[in-house]
């Protein structure tokens, strides 16, 4: 599906979405509060069928956090969108989508410990990679500082 | 002709002439004890190096080749290492049972040596219920494994022990029934009588198809009973790290290791005795000259040759097959081997009564 078609289709689903077409794929920015219903629509829409979430990550822009979801469809591999959601850096909270895409469960746990984003209604939001005692310390944030173990290049 | 029985008779006569009968008996028991212990040590060393060489041969590699000529002294070096290692007992373990278990394992293996005829007229104890004795005593080995698994206070050990308990108890039935077929054909429980009955042909040839079925079942069942791959679920390296002996180290581990190999030797010796004629040479009908040549080979060589052939077979299994799963293992026994052995017993009884065997 072409970018323009995708754009029209997505505008139907979510009227507040804003688009950015500079990249390889269509970038869609939505509000955090719209995310869960929007995700449901993307997954269950009979034309789009975004059933394959292949990358979930977060970017620390120092002023805000941006969640990035890369979505694709196994029915039509040319359908790919990048969903971006800006979050408040001091209190990042977003609905979990692990009920829609199972793979999100692990990816969200990783983002939770690395960036401190809280995923609401996540089935098992615990540290996955970091050892005990690292709750609240988020090493992938740009201002993270560990005076003992930090090695600077 | 030179023979082992000649030596024993000579020693016996000399002792009887020199000492009184009680002292003679005591001295003879001591000699036998020393012989058994040294046989144990030699067997352990030989079988370990054999296993490593066989596995290397199957796995396109050289195997041990540094210590001694062609690496033949490697197992001496290994034993030395195990001897000087610390025998570690975990904190939460039941110390008494933990330390007892390896000795129990080795004692069972030693007891099983008693009725085996190593050569013509060369055995420790000509027991008239030899077959019964073997199957009874070999059941005790499961206790040592359960004891080791329970006393280690380790979940891997416990699971290994429980698996092994289920496994040994199950496969004992098939092994017992397979042995019984030969008892039915011979009409005697004495291992020497069984060997004598094969003077004109081994049971695997004389006993028609039932004997061959029994032999196959026997080999499968004893492989399982000695906890060797593909039935090594009690150890199951990739699942339970080392199963029941996970927590053992040093000499205590070595004793388990030794007991396993000696058990393999014993079951193979019994297999050779029952099915392949023990120390009886290989004869073909009326080929007198061929039979004479065969007779010229000492009986002890015949016995060891057959036993080591079976040991090689069991090693071959180990390095070829993947491991079974616990439910598949029990299915194999209860759904296939046991019914087949029971039917086989009926068949062999008919054969024995009607005299269809050669």
């Amino acid at each position, binding site marked *: 599906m072409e970018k323009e078609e995708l754009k029209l289709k997505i505008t139907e689903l979510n009227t507040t979405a804003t688009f950015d077409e*500079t*990249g*390889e*794929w269509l*970038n869609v920015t939505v509000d955090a509060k719209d995310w869960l219903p929007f995700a449901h629509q993307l997954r269950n829409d009979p034309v789009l069928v975004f*059933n*394959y*979430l*292949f*990358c979930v*990550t977060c*970017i*620390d822009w120092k002023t805000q956090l941006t969640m990035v979801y*890369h979505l694709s469809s*196994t029915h039509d*591999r040319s359908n790919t969108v990048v969903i971006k959601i800006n979050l408040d850096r001091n209190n990042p909270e977003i609905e979990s989508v692990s009920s829609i*895409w*199972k*793979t999100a*469960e*692990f*990816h969200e746990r*990783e983002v939770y410990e690395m960036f401190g984003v809280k995923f609401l209604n996540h089935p098992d939001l*615990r*540290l*996955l*990679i*970091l*050892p*005990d005692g690292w709750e609240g310390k988020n*090493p*992938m944030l740009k201002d993270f500082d560990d005076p003992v173990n930090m090695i*600077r*290049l | 002709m030179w023979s082992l029985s000649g030596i024993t008779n000579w020693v016996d006569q000399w002792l009887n002439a020199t000492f009184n009968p009680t002292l003679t008996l005591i001295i003879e028991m001591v000699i036998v004890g020393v012989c058994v212990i040294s046989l144990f040590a030699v067997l352990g060393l030989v079988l370990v190096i054999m296993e490593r060489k066989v*596995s290397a041969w199957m*796995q*396109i*590699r050289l195997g041990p080749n540094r210590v001694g000529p062609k690496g033949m002294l490697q197992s001496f070096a290994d034993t030395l290492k195990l001897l000087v290692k610390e025998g570690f007992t975990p904190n939460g373990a039941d110390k008494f049972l933990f330390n007892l278990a390896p000795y129990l394992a080795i004692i069972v293996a030693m007891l099983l040596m008693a009725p085996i005829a190593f050569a013509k007229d060369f055995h420790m104890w000509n027991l008239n219920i030899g077959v019964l004795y073997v199957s009874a005593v070999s059941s005790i080995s499961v206790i040592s494994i359960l004891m080791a698994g329970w006393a280690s206070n380790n*979940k*891997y050990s416990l*699971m290994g022990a429980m*698996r092994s308990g289920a496994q040994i108890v199950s496969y004992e039935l098939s092994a017992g029934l397979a042995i019984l077929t030969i008892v039915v054909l011979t009409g005697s429980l004495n291992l020497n009588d069984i060997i004598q009955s094969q003077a004109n042909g081994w049971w695997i040839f004389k006993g028609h198809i039932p004997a061959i079925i029994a032999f196959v079942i026997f080999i499968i069942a004893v492989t399982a009973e000695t906890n060797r*791959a*593909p039935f*090594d679920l009690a150890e*199951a*390296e*990739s*699942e339970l*790290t080392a199963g029941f002996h996970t927590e053992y180290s040093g000499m205590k581990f070595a004793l388990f290791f030794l007991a396993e190999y000696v058990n393999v030797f014993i079951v193979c010796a019994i297999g050779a005795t029952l099915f392949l004629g023990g120390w009886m040479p290989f004869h073909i009908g009326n080929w007198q000259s061929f039979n004479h040549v065969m007779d010229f080979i000492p009986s002890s060589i015949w016995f060891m040759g057959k036993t080591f052939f079976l040991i090689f077979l069991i090693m071959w299994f180990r*390095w*070829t*097959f*993947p*491991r*079974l*799963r*616990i*439910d*598949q293992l029990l299915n194999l026994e209860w759904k296939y081997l046991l019914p087949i052995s029971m039917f086989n017993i009926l068949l062999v009884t008919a054969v024995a009564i009607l005299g269809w065997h050669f």
Partner: protein
Amino acid sequence: MVEEIGTNTDGDLLINVGPQHPATHGVLHLVITLNGETIKKVEPHLGYIHRSIEKMCESLTYRQFIYVTSRMDYLSAHINNHACALCVEKGMQIEVPARAQVIRVIMDELTRIASHELWWGAMAMDIGAFTPFFHAFRERESINDIMEETCGARLTMNYMVPGGVMADLHPDFQKKVKAFISFYKTKIDEADELLTGNIIFQNRMKGVGILTKEDAISYGCTGPTARGSGVRCDIRKIYPYEIYNTLEFDEVIETGCDSLSRYLVRLKEIKQSLRIVEQLIDNIPEGDFQAKTKAVLKLPKGEFYSRVETARGELGVYIVSEGGTTPYRIKFRSPGFSNLSALDKMARGSKLGDLVAMMGTLDLVIPDIDR
């Protein structure tokens, strides 16, 4: 994080498999809830080899960061490097010379063969057959020798640079590869003879670790793991990179959804890789092995995503650039991480012995999961 050792309130046995365990091939830690021999729950705990490669890359230049990624999935190190080089080339719009493309693809496929060979041996060892391991290593060794002669390293080859490869091929390369192909063809069916046809093996693999097509997609599984469940997901076919669209090879799909299917996919994939190498080895074009690039690479401001098919599945490299010499944020979408998340779903209700068979067919490489 780690549950109390012992039993839980339902009387189930909690057992820690790993981080030091023969079946986990590295430092994976699984907390397994067992009822007898039956698995009720599998919970992975990661991080024992987490080096935060993503954070490290933020302070490395675009020339340097490629080589850190060799340490992610060390068995397909070359393919990891390839993904990173592709991403930088995409951002810089560097045209890669034809010779370099062919060399890259040949090396990719050789790496894939080596990786699958190692997997085959290790998986056989997991389910208790020791001999295949050594047979697999014999073939893998000859590939490693070729690698060593070409770029000096055997495992983490670091042969990629943005715009091509680091050095030209060794003069003996074609001869060696052809010798390897003819040798390997005599050995390739050994796998079937030794293991696949074995009745015990079939029983251990058939119907074990069922992962349905829907679940495979939902869990984001890729590579042979997903293709064993009937998902078309070979990046070389659906998003061809380099010269893959000009090559003849089949995407291997099995629809059994069980361990045996995943096993067969990998075995057949080895043959397809061999086919690719055979097509290319006589047709390596003359020319440069590296494009002319600036000494200091600067990616324009923006976001770049590239993906390749490693031996384990889809590896995605997501670079966010602010226009500097180092990435602002980099994310590696590693195949193992997603594949591992499906393990709990697959393992529930099966026996402990099956767990190792499943982990074997997922082909987990722990540094790839932890990064």
